[in-house]
């Protein structure tokens, strides 16, 4: 099973403040604009898609959502400069996002 939430690294990052971390995790659900991302992908607006994935990557990194973060990195590498991504990686991105959200719901 991939590491969806690296609790240890996350707590180290926020100075051991578990309450804060869980509060931030609770906000993850709404922090990534998946609707706009899907629209951008449909319209092949790769710059726009890149912006959203870039933001997602920043948040995932800060919350230590390791598996999803790593997929963000892969997808971002492909999208850079407005290039089309590998659609399989986009699908995996969506899948990991969904799984991560489910994991978060168990914790929060």
């Amino acid at each position, binding site marked *: 099973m991939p590491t969806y939430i690296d609790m240890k690294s996350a707590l180290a990052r*926020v*100075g051991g403040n578990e309450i804060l971390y869980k509060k*931030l995790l609770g906000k993850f659900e709404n922090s990534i604009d998946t609707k706009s991302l899907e629209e951008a992908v449909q319209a092949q607006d790769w710059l726009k898609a890149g912006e959203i994935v870039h933001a997602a990557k920043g948040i995932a990194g800060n919350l230590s959502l390791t598996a999803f973060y790593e997929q963000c990195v892969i997808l971002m590498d492909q999208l850079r400069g407005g290039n089309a991504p590998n659609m399989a990686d986009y699908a995996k991105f969506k899948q990991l996002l969904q799984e991560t959200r489910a994991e978060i719901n168990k914790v929060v």
Partner: protein
Amino acid sequence: MVAKKKLLVVDDQEINRELLVALTSDEFEVFEAENGLVAQEIIDTYRFELALVLLDLHMPVMDGLELLKWMNETKLIDSIPVIMITSEEETSFLLEAFALGASDVMNKTFNAVIVAQRVKNVINLYSYKAHLEEKVEAQRNALNTQEEHIKQMNNSLIDTLSSTVEFRNLESGKHIKRTRMLIKIILQAVKDEYGLSDEQIDTISSASALHDVGKIAIPDAVLLKPGKLTADEFEIMKSHTVKGAEVIQGLDMFKDNDYYQYSLDIAKHHHERWDGRGYPDQLKGDEIPIWAQAASIVDVYDALTSKRVYKDAFTHEKAIAMITNGECGEFNPKLMDVLKRVAPQLKIMSAIIRDEDI
């Protein structure tokens, strides 16, 4: 309780902002902005109260670089440090951010310890820099004050030295003061033609105080003689120009200074005349430095309008007429025009100084 320092977090992602706020709010009063435009308003409101800005690069509406540019234009970047928040793929923007005055960079994946330490370091660095600049400024001011003080001391020493000569001559020290003032009036009127700056004129005016310093070497029997001088006595009297130049040449410490050249020229040549019939070198026309020409006119004017052991004071009008119609030797015709023009000024200034208490 000491008020917390203010810190501004600029990031379009709410979670990132909230995390940074949580990591810094123990020590700071933290403000948040979701883009550069909102940040601009906050910075404009709190200005130098802000201790630091944490700034994301990519944001909608107005991004980090745009905000940095604005902080440059307004010079706010000199007083408010900025730490950029970036991810590794944004290194190309970083060069620009640094060029625009960003102090440091922090990875987007924050770490509590690093955030706290970086923020502290940059704030300390900036206050240290500001402190240093203040110190340098204070030292510069102290030096200027000192320089001004030394200048004043030099002037007053030179005036005192010159005045002792005047006192021996049974005149008040006011001749020096009037010479300084009147020479300024004349040179101001020809400054463009002779390419003189205000600063030069000030220096010449100070240097003119030494014009008669050579009289210190003239024996009382000649200097204080009430009647007409014999030919021999007059030769001795004339030597005060060359003696004065010798005294000034002894002032080695002034040699690199404009002051030195002006005082030397004036002491030596303030009795030369335009037609070459003056002394000691019979210089002609503009061979005589313009400051010495001005000094000679002022010296004659002041001698005429002052009472001496051998004569009464002439009126201002009489003195001007005597100088301009050639009774006191020939002067630069341009300076004669100037003299007529500034005569009313001379009359007023000279009277004011004469009436002052010693």
